[in-house]
């Protein structure tokens, strides 16, 4: 784990930060889920290396997108940041304060500032609670009594997310998927958070509803200045929502850059392959960019490949790739803040199609 040192150093100088301390800073974050086996006494026989040495920083009001395929560790990262999971290694600091192993009591004030929006609007709302009590509960837990009472605040929030405040006493099953997701958003906003971790917030919704929720989140972000960690597998949605984007593969960040750099000048072969695989709703016969077809599947995170984890599917892989894990650094030709973890970064820019 010597590699990320370079990465953090160059990213620190390059991110557009006004203050010295970012809102959230994660370094060397690692989560290994142990696997138990054996008989009659079970013992640890291995580990799923879900997240393996992650460095990230999120500035105040910034939206960072985390993309990658299933199993790349993006959701685990989200859960580690919100401390719903206990990290195996590395540090998480919020406003310069180390919260990696903070106790429940120490975490309480921080937890009210970091909120989460979940993917499934059906399983993330308690069917036995009214919308009012769902949105109210964060205030109850934290003993907060806003001016004018909790109910007034809930009604304001319902209005803010585009729901009818009159629906205060309804139950989740009376709402459609898109409306339920709005309830989840309202709940996340109850305590005026500074950072929201949104884990695939729109992927369970229909296209037309998805656009409504994306626009809502965008507006809230602009109005309330909330920073976002936006986790999604849909590259187009992430491009729309996030100023900076990190691409993950098998528990590691392979490339992180400002939106324009990542989508127009991707340097990592995996980023290129991912971008080229997205089907686009254009009627043109010739695709705008060359299709890169990756063979095979993502290897198991239980025994990831040595060196560069992408090498088993990479068309450029050499012996160096198997021997050494490429550090996440500013590759030659990258603009400031654009880090790539590859021994042989791609060079040609993608065609900017008209």
């Amino acid at each position: 784990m010597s590699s990320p040192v370079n990465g953090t150093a160059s990213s620190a100088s390059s991110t557009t930060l006004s203050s010295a301390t970012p809102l959230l800073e994660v370094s060397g974050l690692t989560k290994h889920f142990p696997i138990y086996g054996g008989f009659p006494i079970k013992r640890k026989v291995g580990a799923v290396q879900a997240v393996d040495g992650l460095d990230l920083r999120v500035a105040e009001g910034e939206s960072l997108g985390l993309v990658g395929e299933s199993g790349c560790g993006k959701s685990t990262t989200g859960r580690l940041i919100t401390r719903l999971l206990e990290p195996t290694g590395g540090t998480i600091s919020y406003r310069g304060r180390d919260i990696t192993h903070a106790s429940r009591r120490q975490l309480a004030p921080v937890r009210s500032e970091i909120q989460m929006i979940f993917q499934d609007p059906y399983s993330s709302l308690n069917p036995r609670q009214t919308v009012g009590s769902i949105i109210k509960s964060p205030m109850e837990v934290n003993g907060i009594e806003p001016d004018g009472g909790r109910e007034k605040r809930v009604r304001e929030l319902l209005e803010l997310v585009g729901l009818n405040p009159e629906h205060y006493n309804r139950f989740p099953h009376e709402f459609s998927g898109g409306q339920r997701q709005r309830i989840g958003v309202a709940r996340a906003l109850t305590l005026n958070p500074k950072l929201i971790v949104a884990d695939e917030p729109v992927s369970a919704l229909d296209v037309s509803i998805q656009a409504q929720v994306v626009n809502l989140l965008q507006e809230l972000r602009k109005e309330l200045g909330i920073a976002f960690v936006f986790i999604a597998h849909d590259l187009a949605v992430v491009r729309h929502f996030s100023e900076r984007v990190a691409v993950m593969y098998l528990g590691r960040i392979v490339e992180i850059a400002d939106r324009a750099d990542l989508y127009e000048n991707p340097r990592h072969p995996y980023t290129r392959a991912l971008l080229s695989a997205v089907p686009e709703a254009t009627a043109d016969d010739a695709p705008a960019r060359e299709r890169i077809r990756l063979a095979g599947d993502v290897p198991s995170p239980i025994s990831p490949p040595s060196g560069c984890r992408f090498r088993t599917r990479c068309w450029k892989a050499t012996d160096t790739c198997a021997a050494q894990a490429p550090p996440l650094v500013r590759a030659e030709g990258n603009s400031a803040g654009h880090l790539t973890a590859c021994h042989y970064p791609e060079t040609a820019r993608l065609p900017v199609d008209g």
Partner: protein
Amino acid sequence: MNNPFLSIRDLKVHFSTEDGVVKAVDGLSFDLAKGRTLGIVGESGSGKSVTNLAVLGLHDREHTALDGEILLDGKELLTATERELERLRGNKMSMIFQDALASLSPYHTIGAQIGETYRKHTGASRREARARAVDMLRRVGIPMPDVRVDDYPHQFSGGMRQRAMIAMALVCDPELLIADEPTTALDVTVQAQIMDLLKELQQEFGTAIVFITHDLGVIADIADDVLVMYGGRCVEQGSKKEVLRDPQHPYTLGLLGSMPSLHGPVDVPLSPIPGSPPSLLNPPSGCRFHPRCAFMEKVDGGRCTSLQPVLEVVDGRGTACHLAPGQRRELFADFATARAL
């Protein structure tokens, strides 16, 4: 289209439920020729999956009322007996489902499941069926097919399971393949592999494919013709180029405007369709899209709320909307320039 392979005329699929009759499909017609791919787009509850279950005769016969005409190679399927359908299913027509894990039996090996269909329709022996299964797995790109044929579904990854399902669907070289959101649960890189595979197989065998999806990007990649469904009806159809480049129905326009893109400006908000899809138990009067339509007041005399627009199809192109063609050109002009950027 001369001599279509699959021809559906005025299909109605109504379910009787405790709360009333759900008109899941309410008057749908289309044709599909061999070697072509028809993409059916629509949101959840638009009737796209139900239509295709009806084609295969997989609907719940007890609670479903069907009406209209489904002709497969000249044979009427709606009046066919279960026995006749069984002979066709898996043989002349077959289907790929969205959730491969739920569609495969966990207790049987992949090879046995692929071979079962083959044995049933050809009367082949176990040994022949196994050889055929290995061959099919090789064709859909499973590495070491002679070993993997004896694996169980849980030993396959998501993409491999979907490939195995495709192998199962294609084992008897069907002439019609219905793919119901076959790539929705997959990652983009695997999705691209599966779509390439379908295209290759189609070129090889001239299969007619109905591809159901909610993703217009996938449609753009794989379909020749497109049919847009809303609330159990077709609102627009045409060739892929016509529909994606020059959408004529406000709903199609709305779908395209809802999709973020990998190109173009980033700071412009998306233009979503307001509201949510209609209840099919109690659908809106007149045009089913009118409660969500931005152009309703442009139509005189409140026809949108009172009169159901008729889908007139000329040369495979048609739109069910009360707006006059000239009006549309004017109203959709902003959109057209935005798309051209």
